Structures are given as structure tokens and as C-alpha cells.
């Protein structure tokens, strides 16, 4: 097992190195002269030359790349042009809001999609199967930012059930004391009911919108792998032994259907990492998505570079986790 994990991690290194080449190239080579972003357009030629020299921009490109890699391994992603803070600090401080949003979206999506997928597989061809197919078709076709706007119109403007976009918590209510950084957990732990209520109200719409988009592929894969499992020889054997249907569905079929579901969860999480950029913008959510949006709007290349590297690393590590889970859950993979 340890050898397997070690080998998998070793395989990641070239991929991640390649990723850094891409982020480096994207942000240093293509936009032309980074000096233009660092100094005023009125600066003299000498000032520009001095700043370029100090920033190491006159060195050959591969030396610049090596310096960049050396910094990244130390956790130095450079300083943001806009906040003047180290990019890594900026990213860390905005991680929790995004994590809270995507976590609840994912949990909600799984909680809805898995039962729906099972039901669609068990009662194939009935109305519930059609509903699940329809939801899947709509769920992936609707742009998340548009669903966000429609949700705001319905639940805020028409029904007044939920507040207008206000970030993680109402500005009138002080955030809960920091324990985990997740407002829901922290307000629960400190018994701060007022903060909890506002947090849940703020979280509900963006999380539900993301969950709606994430649900479709999860329900489809659950249905497909449940059907395969239900038609397999071992379920036929279980049925011929006279086992109750519920035991066949949940104890035998579902267990075997769970592996493809895990892979799909990782794929969908990657999709959420992109979708969250759009949704955070609509809901004024102070997370990574909003940070990178501002970074792009103000040509803040170190911040953009840092974010891409960061979210790609998360994505790659997630697939590592999936592979490890596979080995743990499925003895057949243990080679």
C-alpha cells in the first residue's frame, strides 16, 4: 500500500512540474512586458531598467523559471500586485469561504443525486427514471451564473425568503469566533444562533445552485453503475437465494456501484472549482473565485498564477486520493 502511494506521488511530480511550466509561460511570456504592469507609464527608461534588473526580468527565461520553481517549493508564490500581500497568504485566507461553499454544495448534491440515481435504476423506465433523466439534462445545460440570478430573483425579489447577495453573513451580524474558519461549524460550536441563521441563509442559495449543476452527472453515474450491478451474476445469485430486495439493492449492488461514483465526485469537484468563480461573483462571496476574478480584472499576474497552480494542485491531489480510495475499497485493484 505504502509503495503504491509512493509510486502514485512520484508520478505526480512530472505532471505538476509541467503545470508550473504552463502557469509560468502563461503569465510571463505571453502578456509582453510585465514591467508595464509594475511601473507607471510615465516612468523614465532608467527606472524601468532598474526595476527590470531588480525583478530579475533581464535574466534568460529558464533562469527566471528556475527561480520561480525554487520560490514555489518554499511556498513563495510572489506578491500580489493589488493587495501587496504574499499570494499564498491571500489564497489561504480565502480558502475557507470557498471550501465551505463547495463542501456544502457537494454534500447537498450527493444527498440528492445518489437516492435519485438508485431509484432511477431500481424503477427503470418509470416516471422517476424520466424525472432523473430530465433533471440531468437540464442540470448540465443551464449556466450556473444564470441559475444563480434566477434563484435570486425568485427567492429574494419575489418571495422574500432569502436575503439579497451579501457574502457569507449579513453585514449587520458579526461573524462567529474563529475555530475552524467555517462559519456554519463555528457558529454551531459557539452557540451563536444569530450568526448561524444568517450564515445558513447566505449559504443556501449559492450552495443549492452549485449542487444543482453537480447533481446531474452524479445521478447519471449512480444510475448507470447501479443498473450494471443489479444485472450482474452476483445479484442474480443473491436473488435466487431469496434475499430481500432491499438487501440486494443496498448491501450488494450499491457497494459495487460506489467506485465509479467516487471518480465522478472528483471530476465534479473539479467542475465546481471553475463554477465557484462564477457563483462567488454573483453572490459577492469572499472566496478564491472572487479573488481570482479581481486578479484578472486588474492584470494581477502573480495572483492569477498562484490561484491556477493552487487549484490545479488541489485537483490533482484529489485524484490521488481517489486512486488510494479505490485500492482501499476494491480488493481487485490491489495489484
Amino acid at each position, binding site marked *: 500500500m505504502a509503495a503504491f502511494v509512493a509510486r502514485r506521488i512520484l508520478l505526480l511530480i512530472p505532471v505538476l512540474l509541467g503545470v508550473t511550466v504552463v502557469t509560468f509561460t502563461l503569465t510571463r511570456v505571453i502578456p509582453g512586458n510585465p514591467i508595464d504592469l509594475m511601473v507607471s507609464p510615465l516612468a523614465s527608461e532608467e527606472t524601468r531598467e532598474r526595476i527590470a534588473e531588480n525583478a530579475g526580468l533581464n535574466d534568460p527565461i529558464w533562469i527566471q523559471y528556475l527561480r520561480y520553481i525554487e520560490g514555489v517549493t518554499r511556498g513563495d508564490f510572489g506578491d500580489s500586485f493589488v493587495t501587496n500581500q504574499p499570494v499564498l497568504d491571500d489564497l489561504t485566507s480565502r480558502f475557507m469561504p470557498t471550501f465551505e461553499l463547495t463542501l456544502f454544495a457537494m454534500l447537498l448534491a450527493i444527498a440528492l443525486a445518489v437516492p435519485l440515481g438508485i431509484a432511477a435504476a431500481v424503477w427503470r423506465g418509470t416516471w422517476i427514471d424520466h424525472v432523473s433523466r430530465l433533471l440531468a439534462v437540464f442540470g448540465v445545460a443551464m449556466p450556473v451564473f444564470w441559475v444563480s440570478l434566477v434563484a435570486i430573483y425568485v427567492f429574494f425579489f419575489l418571495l422574500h425568503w432569502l436575503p439579497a447577495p451579501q457574502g457569507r453573513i449579513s453585514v449587520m451580524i458579526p461573524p462567529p469566533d474563529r475555530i475552524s474558519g467555517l462559519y456554519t461549524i463555528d457558529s454551531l460550536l459557539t452557540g451563536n444562533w444569530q450568526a448561524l441563521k444568517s450564515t445558513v441563509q447566505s449559504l443556501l442559495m449559492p450552495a443549492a445552485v452549485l449542487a444543482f449543476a453537480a447533481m446531474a452527472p452524479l445521478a447519471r453515474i449512480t444510475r448507470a453503475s447501479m443498473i450494471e450491478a443489479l444485472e450482474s451474476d452476483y445479484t442474480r445469485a443473491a436473488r435466487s437465494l431469496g434475499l430481500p430486495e432491499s438487501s440486494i439493492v443496498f448491501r450488494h449492488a450499491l457497494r459495487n456501484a460506489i467506485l465509479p461514483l467516487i471518480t465522478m465526485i472528483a471530476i465534479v469537484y*473539479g467542475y465546481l472549482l*471553475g463554477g465557484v468563480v462564477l457563483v462567488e461573483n454573483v453572490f459577492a462571496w469572499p472566496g478564491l473565485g472572487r479573488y481570482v476574478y479581481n486578479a484578472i480584472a486588474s492584470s494581477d499576474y502573480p495572483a*492569477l498564477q498562484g490561484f491556477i497552480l493552487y487549484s490545479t494542485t488541489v*485537483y490533482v491531489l484529489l485524484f490521488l486520493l481517489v486512486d488510494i480510495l479505490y485500492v482501499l475499497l476494491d480488493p481487485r485493484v490491489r495489484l
Partner: protein
Amino acid sequence: MAEIAVHMTRRLAGLSKWCRRNPITALGFGIIVGLGILGLLAPLIAPYDPYALNPREKMQAPSLNHLFGTGIFGEDIFSRVLYGIRIDFGIGLGAVAIGLFTGSTVGVIAGYYGGRIDEVCMRLMDIVAAFPGFILAMAIAGVLGPSIPNLIIAIAVVNVPVYARLSRSRFLVIRSSLYALAARGVGASDVRILAWHLLPNSLAPIFVQSTLQCGWAILDAAGLSFIGLGVRLPTPEWGVMIGLGAPRIITGQWWISFFPGLAIAITVMGFNLIGDGLQDLLDPRRK
């Protein structure tokens, strides 16, 4: 004349039979073809100039004069949504075409030569695929600057590994097939085998993938434009139009964003229905 008529009716009968047997795929085709025609005929159908501003009729709710209402500059949303078909279909098809061409070239080269070239090509594809798709597109579009060609490039790059892997795996299966062997046996050249035997046989799954990718491409393009990284104002692109109406949602002018978004949803649904349906046709096990 009569023979042609008989032939035509027979053709149509065949088509309607096929549609009845595959209603979902037919619906998808219907949506895409219908929207395509609307887009082509936009200058004839659109009641207003999509770029015309009319400050006297700002933010009017949908009415008979303005079917989808008017926007914050008094522009006619219906006309702009119609013209948007041209832009969004263009971006989607363009991105898929470039991604398809580049990706399958890489895939076929990797599959054909094998060995070290294969290894290098596929590891490169692994790196591109390691990025979450939308985020890579966002980075490329952000760096290249907002314009339609840049947007197409950004989305195409994300598509490349998909086609490279698909075409490589198809290629490997077909290369060892009996008919490729037979062609080689009668002395056909490599190029001839590639172009005449291997390419047509790997087209079907690639075509299916392309319709699905087209939907994604349009979604991504709209998303990038929505955050200001794609198409710019005043181009009637659906994502930009949604962005323009976004601040007006909390004050109740829903139609500015609603109709362009609906157009995206219907288009993407159309492409996905085609892709899903064709996948079922190609792989009977999925039925």
C-alpha cells in the same frame, strides 16, 4: 418528376420513422437545426437592429413591441438574442473544430509512431488535462485578452486532450484490425491506410464527443464573457448579455438576463441530447 417525388417521400418516411424510434436525439437535432436557421435568418426576423440603443425605452418589460423586453440602454433583447445565435454557435463550433483538429492530430501521431513520441505526446496531454477545464480557459483568456478569437483558442486548448486521447485509443484499436491488415497486405501505403481506412472508422465516436463538447464550449464561453474575459460589449453574445442584466436582478428587471440564459440552456440541451442519443446508438449496451 414523379420518381423524384416518390423517392423524396420515401426518404421523408424513413426520416420520420427514425425520429419516432429516437425521439430524444431527434429533438436535439430539431433544436440545433431550428436555432441554426433562426440565426441565419436573424436579419430578416429581428425586429430591431441588435446594436441600436434607445434611451427612451430603457428596461421595459416584455411586450408585443419588445417580445423579450429592453435592456439598460433600451436595446431590444429579442433581436440581440437572435443575433447571439451566430456569435455563440460560432464560438462553440470554432472551439470544437480547432480542438478536434489539433487533438486528433496529436492522438493519431502518438498512436501511429508509438514509443517515445507517444509517451511525450500523451504526457503533454496529461498536463493540460490536469487543470480544471474552466480555470485553464480562464487563465488563457485572461492572459490573451478579451476577444472572440482568443476566447475560441482558450476553450479549444481545454478540448485538445479529450480528442487526443480518444483518437489515439480508437486508432490503436483499428490499427490492429483485420481490415487494416488486409489493406497493408494488398500493398496500400501508410498514408492511404490512415486517410482511407483508419480515419473514417474513428470518426463516429469523435463526432459524438464533439456534440457534447460543443455544449460545454458554449457554456464556458458564456461564463468567461459573463466575468468579462470573453466577448466584449456591445457584441450580442449571450454571456455578456446576462452579465449586463445581473445587477438588475435584485431590482426586479429579470428579462434582461433571463432570455439570453434561456437561449444558452436550450442550445446546450440540444447539443447534449444529440450527443447522448448518438452515444446510445453507437453503443447498444447503453440502451
